[in-house]
Each structure stands twice: as structure tokens, then as C-alpha cells.
């Protein structure tokens, strides 16, 4: 299966993720089977050997994320894919990727938890785990697709961001998007930008694996390139050697924070549909966006005008955009497939005069447009 550039096809969400990865030049996949993510592994098991890339099914998810990071450090564009239980097992590795600044893409196709939960029905229960699942302060970049085409586009974007920012990027999909089939018109090859990680030009004896730059991201040599360097999960200095010196510790921690916090324009993406002129706005992400948009149309037929605000980037959270576009509204309806995760971010950023209303479901079924319409009708 190659990327059907410029063509129109009926494609499944997980398949679109695999195609997006191939379009990005993925050359290493390490994973452990778990529904509803497995199609991604199965497609890459078939395609990567044909490209001279590596597919390996590891012994568990901890091994998977570790092998993926090893491969990335050796220069390969690398990824893994999993769901809730596996995502939990990957958390220590995710933190290693953040502190060691290793680019790779982690796809979490969310299913209902906690634990084995409802295998394998839809949920959005991992939103906070994606932000705070690993221990310690760390940057997080998380994208949530709402259509099959976005599965393709955002996988490419996830690779581009991870290589640009030298950090793990999470594609937070869900069971509905992952398993849904939709008609997709693929872009033409030349319309898609694929970014490679910056590599050092400094002489080998001057190389610092964590050199401070204006962007806070250092060019990155790979193992075996003749640049010999050290990588550790210990707090380290510019060369990668462990340190406890307070100035060096603070420099590293600040740099990790700022490399994301100071470049929000490149990271944060929101999409708005008739938000400007509506007093009531639905805030939705992932598969729930589809119900939100359907509800918007249904409400319009009832002569009720509502907007839809959707963060495509969940983390870093679009603080500025929420403040700017939602703080003057009367009501914000927040449908989520969990018991309340991003709603707290919306509450944090809006004044007390704004009513923030939850619509929540954790029974493994998608929130229906009717449920959102009912919530809207109560306040309109």
C-alpha cells in the first residue's frame, strides 16, 4: 500500500495514520498489539520491509517505546501506536524522550478505561494522561484528529513537529476515528511538507548534543555518525553529562519548557465554525467534533445559532485562543467522552459570567448530536 497521492479513496482512520507515517518517511515501527490501534502496526509490518525500513513487534509496550527511542537516536524516523493500557506502560519512556529530547511519534487510539475497561469502545479518557502521565515537569505536544483525512494530515504534522522540536509528539486518536471509514481526497505529493531534523555542522570535537540555541532546540547528531555523545535520563549539561549544578539544572529545565512555550504559534491550532457571531459555543475535540457539528446544523434548523470551537492541538492548550474567542460568550457546552478533563481548562480560562456546561459519557458510546442539542436547548 503506497500513499495514493492526489486520489480519492475510502480509507479507515488507522489506515490513514499509517499512510501519513509512510508519507513522512517513517523507517522504524516498534509496537505491541492492542485494539483499537492494531491496524497501524499491521499495515506497517507489511509496508516497512518493502522500503528497507524496520518493523518489530516487541515483547511489551515498555520495550516498544524504548526500541523506538533507540532507533530515533540512531537516525531513523520512528513511531509506535497503542491504546490505554499500553499508553500507561509507555509513560516512563515518554518522560525519557522528553528529557533526552528524542523525536518520535506515539499514537494513542483511546479506548474506555480505567484498566481493561470496555474493550474496545470509544473514550477520551487519556487527555490528561497525555499531558501529565509521566512524572516530573515536561513539555507535551498532543494533537487530536476528528476526521480520517486529519488522521493522515496530523500524523505528518506530528512527525514534523517532533523532528523540529526534538520531542515526542502524541497523536491522540480515539476508537471511533480510528475505525471509521471515510472518503478521503489525498493531497498531491508536492502539497505536503516533510521536515527532517536539523543536523549539526559543528566540528565533532565542538559538538554539544544539547547546545542552547535561539529556538531552544539543538541540532541533533545520531549514533554512528562519528559524533560521539552521551545520552541519559539524568538531568544533564549541554554535552549530555549528568549534572547537579543548579545553574545547569535550571538551564536544562527552562530550555525544555521554553522550547514549546515560546513557540506556541507553530504548535497551537484551533478550528472555529461560526464562533464569532454565536452567544453559545460548543467546545469539542476528536470524534466528538462530528456530533458537535451535526448538532450545530440541527440547532440552526430550530433557529438557534451556536458556534463550534475545536482545539486540534490539545497540548499545549490553546489558552490564548480560548480567552480571546470564548471569554465573552454566554454559554460554552463541553461534550467529552470522559468525566470531565478539558472542561477544567475551559473553566480556568473563562470568567465567572460564562456558563460552562458539561455533556459527558463514559459508557463506551459516542455522544450523540441529540444530547448536545438537548443541552443547548435548555439554555437557549
Amino acid at each position, binding site marked *: 500500500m503506497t500513499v495514493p497521492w492526489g486520489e480519492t479513496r475510502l480509507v479507515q482512520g488507522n489506515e490513514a495514520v499509517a499512510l501519513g507515517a509512510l508519507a513522512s518517511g517513517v523507517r522504524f515501527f516498534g509496537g505491541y498489539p492492542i485494539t483499537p490501534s492494531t491496524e497501524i502496526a499491521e499495515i506497517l509490518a507489511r509496508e516497512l520491509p518493502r522500503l528497507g525500513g*524496520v518493523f518489530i513487534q516487541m515483547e511489551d509496550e515498555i520495550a516498544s517505546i524504548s526500541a523506538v527511542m*533507540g532507533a*530515533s537516536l540512531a537516525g531513523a524516523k520512528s513511531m509506535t501506536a497503542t491504546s490505554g493500557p499500553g499508553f500507561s506502560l509507555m509513560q516512563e519512556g515518554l518522560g525519557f524522550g522528553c528529557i533526552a529530547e528524542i523525536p518520535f511519534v506515539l499514537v494513542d487510539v483511546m479506548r474506555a478505561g480505567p484498566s481493561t475497561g470496555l474493550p474496545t469502545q470509544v473514550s477520551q479518557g487519556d487527555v490528561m494522561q497525555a499531558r501529565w502521565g509521566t512524572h516530573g515537569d515536561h513539555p507535551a505536544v498532543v494533537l487530536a484528529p476528528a476526521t480520517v483525512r486529519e488522521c493522515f494530515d496530523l500524523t505528518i504534522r506530528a512527525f514534523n513537529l517532533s523532528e523540529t522540536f526534538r520531542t515526542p509528539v502524541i497523536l491522540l486518536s480515539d476508537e471511533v476515528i480510528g475505525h471509521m471509514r471515510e472518503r478521503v481526497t489525498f493531497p498531491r505529493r508536492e502539497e505536503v511538507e516533510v521536515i527532517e531534523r536539523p543536523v549539526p555542522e559543528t566540528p565533532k570535537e565542538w559538538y554539544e548534543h544539547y547546545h542552547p540555541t535561539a529556538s531552544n532546540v539543538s541540532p541533533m547528531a*545520531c549514533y554512528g555518525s562519528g559524533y560521539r555523545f*552521551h545520552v*541519559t535520563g539524568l538531568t544533564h549539561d549541554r554535552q549530555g553529562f549528568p549534572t547537579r549544578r543548579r545553574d545547569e539544572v535550571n538551564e536544562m529545565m527552562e530550555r525544555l519548557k521554553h522550547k514549546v512555550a515560546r513557540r506556541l504559534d507553530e504548535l497551537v491550532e484551533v478550528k472555529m465554525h461560526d464562533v464569532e457571531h454565536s452567544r453559545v459555543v460548543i467546545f469539542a475535540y476528536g470524534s466528538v467534533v462530528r456530533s458537535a457539528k451535526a448538532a450545530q446544523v440541527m440547532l440552526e434548523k430550530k433557529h438557534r445559532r451556536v458556534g463550534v470551537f475545536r482545539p486540534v492541538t490539545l497540548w499545549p492548550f490553546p489558552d490564548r485562543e480560548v480567552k480571546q474567542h470564548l471569554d465573552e460568550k454566554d454559554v460554552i457546552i463541553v461534550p467529552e467522552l470522559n468525566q470531565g478533563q478539558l472542561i477544567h481548562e475551559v473553566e480556568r480560562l473563562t470568567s465567572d459570567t460564562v456558563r460552562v456546561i458539561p455533556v459527558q459519557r463514559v459508557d463506551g458510546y459516542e455522544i450523540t448530536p441529540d444530547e448536545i442539542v438537548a443541552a443547548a436547548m435548555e439554555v437557549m
Partner: protein
Amino acid sequence: MPAEFPYEHKYLRAKKKFPHVWCPGCGIGIVMGSIIRAVDSLGWSKNEVMVVSGIGCTSRMPVYLDFNTLHTMHGRALAFATGIKLANPELRIIAVMGDGDALAIGGNHIIHSARRNIDITAVIVNNYNYGMTGGQHSPTTPLEKITKTSPYGMVEPEFDICELLKAAGSVFVARGTVYHVIELDGLIRKALEKKGFSVVEAISPCPTNYGRDNRLGDAVRMMESLRDDSVNVAQAARMKPEELAGKIVRGVLADREAPEYTDLYLELCRRVRSSGEVGE
């Protein structure tokens, strides 16, 4: 530069990373010396050698070595190493691990690395306990021995590292001690030369924790015990089972041929690419 350590100085990140973290009398530095001398004797360039470790006293080793080096998470050295090897098969990979790192938290990865027969050399420093965290019991702590988490004596039986990894599929398995340094240099060299998953268990004293908790004497006394309580495979072959009880057997314990994983994978890629075949 002292003349008696010509190799060591060529391979250490001397200016940057010393003094090291290890206690006086610890054996880990001796294992590091053996690795250096083995690499040097093979004439490998520093650029082609990759040393990966997990977490623990032993796993602090890579930072001192002027190779490609990676200090990963507790137990995960071999999983990282697997990704590196597959992404760049040219690299010669050495994974250094403590006994807990390799066989408790990393037990899953080591048996699967052996089963795959991926071309990595695992050097396991066995000090019979968790050194770094203050001397708790490990999967290799012998029965009845005292550690901080077996204060009344260890009740779980221990793993025999070499037997376990032979059974799991390693093509080369050897055991040495840090007392028998020249022998250890040679065992590591043989392991490095071997294509496939090779293992060297290096028995090493932890005078600070295991030694003190079991009243095994000072570091020198512990080294003498390695001399007195071990025999090589040739001597062992001449001994009766009851004479062998409690003895450490040193030397090459398994050496066989089997197809190596990276080779098999690359061959699979070549086959698929040349035939244009698409998998089911």
C-alpha cells in the same frame, strides 16, 4: 599519562567525568577496564562501538567511556539497544547491566533478546544485590543471604544467569570474575567477536552493601573469596558434583551457531524488495 594504563586513557572521557561514582573496592571499574581492553584488542574504532546501559551502579559505566553512549531506564538497556541495532546494524553494541537491571525489571527484554538472537553483547555485573538503592535482594541473591529487604535471610531461590540465558537461546554464554581479570578480558573479547546475542556474567563484589550485610569482610577479602570459591570449566569437569557445590564455574559455558536476527531481517527486506511480494 601513566604508562601502565595505555588503553584506558585512550578510551576514557577522562577530563570530563572523573572522579567516578563507585565505592572504594567496588568491582564495576574492573569490568569497565576489561571491556576497554577487549575492544582495544579487536582494533575497533571508538565510532563504531555503542555502549548502552539501564539504571544502577553498573549502568553508570557508559558516561565514562568515549564511545557512543546511552544511559537508559531501569531494565530497558536491551530494548533501546534493539532499536539502535536495527536502525544501524553497523554499530557494535555492548549492553552493560546490573543483575537486577538485567534479570528482574529487565527480565522480559533479556529472554526475548536471547530468543531473537540479535547481535548485542550483554555484560551483566552480578554483585548479588541492588547496589545503587542500598543493597536490597535481587534475582541472583543466594538463599539465606541477608540484604536490606531480606533481613531474615533470602527465601526465594536464585536465577543462574548463564543457565537461564543458554536456555533462552544465547549463542555465547560465559562467566568470569573481577579477580580473574585477564580471563575476563578474554571472555568479553570472545563475546564481542561472536555474532548474535552473547552474554558475559561478571561476578563482582559490592563491599558497601552485600559484603557488609553478610559480614564477608573488606573488599580485599571479598576478592580473595572470588579466587578461593571459583574454578574454571576445565577444573570443574574433573570435579564431583558434591565438590562443585557452592563453587562459581568460570569460562565459556555455551558457544554455538545460529542465524542472527538483524541479518535475517535485512535478508527478508532484500527478498521482499526484489520479488515485489506483498505480505498477506
